[in-house]
């Protein structure tokens, strides 16, 4: 077997040193009834590299890929062009095959990268500090709600109806076990968000208000009033960003008063990957740092006074605090954080702003084109690279009909909110720099035909 270096004579020699007659002697502590004497029956034996590759190629061909088709899906995962050098760098063995940097003298590469990543995320979100990543946006969102509970010692969270329904679902699952109360609502297909509902609901028992920005329908609204009201009542504002490229064009949530900003970093560097692995972003005000979940990288010096980096404030974490830790998280999303950071470094301020402007301008053009179709209306007044259309009929079958024509034409609200009639004609369309004007035209023509 190509991954196993020991030879039969090595094994014999090693058994001799150990003083065992056979390998079975080493498994003597396993009860005989549970010990398998040979390979598990009914499963295939080892396969060559070529055979394995062939199997995967066959399965891969059964999927419709984003790059080879007109593609307009978003709703929490976005298709952006990832520079070739990003993948090259994350495949360097020194990054790819390193462990968590617990031995900092020989892990400065990962640690310095994390320090840079934390700074990039904090600046992008308009926050003081950020951590070294979470699993994904949805789990980061729940962790933020938990953190707000610890800070305020309250357990009532108000969730905007514009929060991604899967994020709401995750929060509901977790809240059922922690005893938190979640005030939730379904979105309306209107240009205005439900900020009035949120403002109304905030009271002295509220731990936090959770608002997605831009929201699930693509709408963008100023968070300042919600922040002010929340703070007035001793509650926190948590902003959730599922499309960080937007922050190259619009104000950072931290600059509008958000106390904790979390997000999904998949947009930069990571790619679609059918939903994972992604990278959860987590930033907050400095005064809350000791309540943060996850790993933190900090600057220090070595014994000769040279600058270096270490994992720090680990007394928050499970390996020290066990059942009293701020979270049970251990493994994070380090390599995806690297991909995010490299992509953002390649873009820089200029590139991110240019990319954001390009996304927005293309989305505006696409929205204008698609709303020329009879019966198709734009819900949004404001949006970044994603907007919601109402169709004259149920959107979900339309998406399937588009797929039959080899067009991946957005995410239907029927998929996101099954069984909600008021939303079933809604279609969320994302337009990034990867969509060509031909793609938009192909999409529009097919949509027109299907709706006719």
């Amino acid at each position, binding site marked *: 077997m190509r991954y196993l270096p020991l030879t039969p004579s090595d094994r014999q020699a090693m058994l001799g040193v150990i003083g065992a007659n056979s390998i079975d002697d080493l498994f003597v502590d396993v009860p005989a009834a549970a010990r398998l004497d040979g390979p598990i029956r009914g499963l295939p034996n080892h396969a060559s590299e070529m055979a394995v590759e062939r199997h995967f190629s066959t399965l891969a061909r059964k999927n419709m890929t984003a790059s080879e088709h007109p593609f307009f899906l978003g709703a929490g995962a976005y298709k952006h062009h990832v520079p070739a050098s990003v993948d090259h760098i994350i495949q360097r063995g020194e990054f790819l095959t390193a462990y968590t940097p617990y031995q900092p003298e020989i892990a400065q590469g990962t640690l310095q990268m994390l320090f840079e990543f934390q700074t990039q995320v904090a600046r992008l979100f308009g926050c003081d500090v950020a951590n070294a990543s979470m699993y994904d946006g949805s789990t980061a969102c729940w962790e933020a709600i938990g953190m707000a509970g610890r800070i305020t010692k309250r357990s009532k969270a108000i969730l905007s109806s514009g929060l991604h329904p899967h994020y709401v679902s995750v929060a509901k699952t977790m809240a059922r076990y922690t005893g938190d109360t979640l005030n939730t609502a379904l979105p309306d297909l209107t240009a205005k968000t439900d900020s009035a509902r949120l403002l109304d609901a905030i009271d002295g028992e509220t731990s936090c208000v959770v608002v997605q920005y831009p929201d699930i329908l693509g709408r963008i609204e100023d968070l300042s009033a919600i922040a002010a009201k929340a703070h007035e009542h001793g509650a926190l504002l948590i902003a959730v960003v599922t499309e960080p490229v937007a922050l190259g064009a619009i104000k950072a949530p931290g600059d509008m008063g958000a106390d904790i900003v979390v997000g999904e970093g998949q947009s930069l560097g990571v790619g679609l990957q059918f939903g994972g692995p992604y990278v959860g972003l987590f930033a907050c005000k400095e005064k809350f740092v000791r309540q943060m979940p996850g790993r933190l990288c900090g600057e220090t010096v070595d014994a000769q006074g040279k600058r270096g980096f270490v994992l720090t404030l680990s007394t928050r974490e499970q390996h020290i605090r066990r059942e009293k830790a701020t979270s049970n998280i251990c493994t994070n999303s380090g390599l995806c954080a690297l991909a995010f950071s490299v992509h953002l470094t390649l873009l*820089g301020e200029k590139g991110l702003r240019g990319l954001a402007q390009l996304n927005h301008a293309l989305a505006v053009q696409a929205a204008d084109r698609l709303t020329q179709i009879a019966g198709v209306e734009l819900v949004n007044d404001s949006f970044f690279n994603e907007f919601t259309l109402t169709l004259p009929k149920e959107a979900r079958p339309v998406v399937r009909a588009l797929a039959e024509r080899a067009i991946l034409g957005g995410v239907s609200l029927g998929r996101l909110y099954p069984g909600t009639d008021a939303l079933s004609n809604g279609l969320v369309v994302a337009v990034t720099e990867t969509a060509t004007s031909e793609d938009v035209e192909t999409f529009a023509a097919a949509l027109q035909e299907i709706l006719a």
Partner: protein
Amino acid sequence: MNAINQSGWKPEMGKAGETAPATFTGNKALMLDEALIFEIGTAATTGVDLADAPKGTARLGNLERHRDIGLPGLSEPEAVRHYTRLSRQNYAIDLGFFPLGSCTMKHNPRLNEKVARMAGFADVHPLQPVETVQGALAVINELAIWLIQLTGMHGVAMTPKAGAHGELCGILCIKAALAARGDPRSVILVPESAHGTNPASAAFAGFSVENIPATSEGRVDLAALTARLGPDVAGVMITNPNTCGLFERDMREISDAVHAAGGYVYCDGANFNAIVGRVRPGDLGIDAMHINLHKTFSTPHGGGGPGSGPVVLSEALSPYGPLPYTARHADGHYTLIEEESAEECHPHSFGRMTAFHGQMGMFTRALSYIMSHGADGLHQVAEDAVLNANYILRSLEDVLEAPFAHSGPCMHEALFSDDGMADGFSTLDIAKGLIDEGYHPMTVYFPLVVHGAMLVEPTETESKATLDQFIGALRSVAQRAKAGDPSLKSAPHHAPRRRLDETQAARKPVLVWREPEQAIAAE
């Protein structure tokens, strides 16, 4: 063999050397320091060429960002060099032996990377119509079947994002199962040697955590455990093989006792590599066990993640597993069971624990690894992993105290303590000494049940020659620690950094970079 000098240092070797002069840059040939992107990049530099945005009226709701974000950019050559130079300050499994106990740092096959990058898996969106992602769903389903077969369990939850997320999944299944029968049990028993994630996961779900003592042999004390069982105990979380590197001989009895008392058995599968293909946890009465795909099934650790933690479930707990999951129909067609169809297909699910379908990129890699080995190869994996660990244990027990070695063989990892070191010398010094020898240290100070623990896990992907050289190096470092060699106290001497001041880092946390003026102003 990966050192020129195979027979050890000889006194004459160092005599011809003279003191190296300081360099202008501070670099030392291939030892290159690297500034931060904030010190070398500029706001005007970019490594990405973009089309100009077409003209039009912005519809950003009057929320245009005017203030600078403060993101430095690098051109592509500068960026590639920056990260390449950083990478060279990392130790990695590709560079050498990485015997971190309980972390299973095995070779990461590049075939896995290749298949994960096939456009059919890497370039598909999680919310595409299921008709357009049949191949992706097939991968998830095929891996699920392998995991069920390898563990002898009834079902598997594929969505957990990492080991600790998997623990949470298992604990929530237990909580849901108890709720379904209206049973308010509130205590989870955890051995003292458990990973910190175990009590943290149990506590998250509102359980109180109680420790179970170990025997002098390093195993769960069956009598003490049985005595504690009762109507308030929801279950136990046991790592098997445990973090002392030992198989819990009484696992079946533990499971039977817990079940008889109305509780459930969670197994931390972090150490599954020791028994994969040789022992099926389902045969030991386990109700739930997470499998770290980034350990046993070779998906890369990536400097701390991403991981993936599918959870295999017994018949009793399977009904409570999370959404979504994939279902294969008789005609070979796959569907996704999400909230929409849950009431009909999976009514007792505890719900969703992450946005999408789990770590697809890890599923492809793990399946590639599993298919490459097959049933016969995986059987060999466990054998070689255990053989390598025992070889290290028996080759070093004369120089390092091995607290449980008398009780028999170890499984996949060898545990030593710092007993017998000279005054003032500890496990940390041995670890740092190993760095100078060109190794990543073993896991240190874990498990907590052994003083100055050193946990060595070689895995099956190391050759005998590599082990022999490591044994020689660790022997040499241990002897220095016993003799009180002062130079060991300041090791490492040859790494990119000397020992770092972790106390200062925690006392005055600097977690982001600030412009020097700003930094001064803040003080």
